[in-house]
């Protein structure tokens, strides 16, 4: 067993096969022990230190505590005939030339241990197709895949129910709300108090009679809310330092938040859940200038008559209204509703 693992790479394989190598002694236990342990376990005694380890069937025994070779591998003497760099001036006796294995591998790998086996992680990819599951509470322990929608005869019944839902108001934050709740969300960009906003990423809808499990979202559900306040939280004092470091930081900060009042949780099972197309170029002129124009500037925009007779800005002839960057309309609140990851309809931040 004094081989280095490099010289005997199939050592582990050898150890898995019974009977064990010469210096591993498989000691037969008394018969009552063998039956108690199922008859497959042996008591492996190592001559040096591993006494007392009961190893299971097919358990892998390795030399040393690590499965990988260490950074400072043990010195292995070359055969004197192959050792070109051996300084012959230092060779005084015959024992200096002798191939000595005594002190090579002893200290690092003298101990026998059981190799740790890590289970490989179960892969999550490819993900299942995004769907949702409609579950009536009457047939509660559902054991089969549930449909996305109930029977069309129940559509009206569903819409009239009092609902609650879990929706996302930003990439990070989920809220469980019912109608009339006030929630504190991250700041919504360029939204004033009193404006109506729609959130399209609904993860779960429930009521007294049914639950709709979004996997990951419910495509036909939306949350309508009113912006109650665009405000700041209370002032927090932040002061921190670390011992023995000559620095400290003190600042007062207030976080921008948006208070939302939930007006409505809408289920539209009979409509197409796809969002309307992106806004028209007339609305996008601000983006063309890459800033928000004031009314005086907007009046200076040159308008022409479009194909259908309506006035459109002249820029629309060369700019078709595509996003220059995915998610830029969403960030400015121009899309019909806010959608965040993991919504499959979200326009950006996909994984």
């Amino acid at each position: 067993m004094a081989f280095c693992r490099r010289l005997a790479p199939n050592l582990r394989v050898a150890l898995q096969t019974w009977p064990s190598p010469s210096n591993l002694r498989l000691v037969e236990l008394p018969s009552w022990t063998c039956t108690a342990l199922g008859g497959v376990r042996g008591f492996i005694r190592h001559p040096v230190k591993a006494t007392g380890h009961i190893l299971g069937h097919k358990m892998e025994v390795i030399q040393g505590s690590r499965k990988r070779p260490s950074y400072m591998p043990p010195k292995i003497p070359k055969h004197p005939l192959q050792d070109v760099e051996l300084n012959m001036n230092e060779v005084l006796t015959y024992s200096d030339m002798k191939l000595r294995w005594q002190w090579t591998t002893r200290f690092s790998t003298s101990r026998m241990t059981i190799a740790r086996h890590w289970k490989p992680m179960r892969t999550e990819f490819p993900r299942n197709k995004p769907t949702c599951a409609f579950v009536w509470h009457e047939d509660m322990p559902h054991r089969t895949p549930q449909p996305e929608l109930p029977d069309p005869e129940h559509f009206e019944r569903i819409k009239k129910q009092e609902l609650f839902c879990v929706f996302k108001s930003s990439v990070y934050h989920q809220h469980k709300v019912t109608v009339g709740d006030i929630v504190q969300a991250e700041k919504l960009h360029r939204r004033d108090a009193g404006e109506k906003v729609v959130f399209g990423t609904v993860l779960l809808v429930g009521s007294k009679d049914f639950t709709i499990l979004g996997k990951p979202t419910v495509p036909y559900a939306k949350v309508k809310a009113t912006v109650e306040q665009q405000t700041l939280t209370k002032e927090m004092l932040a002061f921190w330092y670390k011992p023995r470091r000559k620095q400290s930081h003190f600042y007062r900060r207030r976080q921008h938040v948006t208070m939302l009042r939930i007006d409505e949780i809408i289920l539209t099972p009979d409509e197409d859940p796809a969002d309307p197309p992106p806004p028209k170029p007339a609305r996008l002129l601000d983006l063309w200038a890459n800033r928000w124009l004031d009314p005086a500037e907007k009046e200076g925009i040159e308008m022409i008559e479009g194909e259908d007779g309506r006035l459109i800005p002249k820029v629309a002839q060369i700019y078709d209204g595509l996003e220059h960057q995915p998610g830029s309309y969403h960030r400015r609140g121009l899309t019909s509703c806010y959608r965040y990851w993991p919504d499959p309809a979200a326009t950006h931040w996909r994984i």
Partner: protein
Amino acid sequence: MLLSAVRFGRIPREIVFAVAKGMYGRSKRCFKLAAVRVMKELNHMYWLRKKRRKQMRILWITRINAASREHGFLYSRLISGLTRANMAVDRKSLCILAETEPASFKCVVDEAKRMMKRETLESARNLSRF
């Protein structure tokens, strides 16, 4: 670090005394003593605010675990079942669901149970769901 309040990133004197209000002994009156106590106090508050997120998550997990065990299901199996089911409801929402909406929470647990059932060979070979 030298615990002195006269430095860059220092705490203003008014704030020192505002925070030191109600402290024991001369710490609430003498600036030199109060500064040290307040710096330590605010430093604790700062790091505890970071720690609170971890603690809340631990709390949610504990509650979800207890609630899902009522349905005979372990937390770890629940979470891995939800992952396989492609559901994105987080711990906070699950915890609130378990507390306030037991029926819906049971639906979620049932869904996870269904996903964690051992796959038969046919369903494992069925690639139509991808």
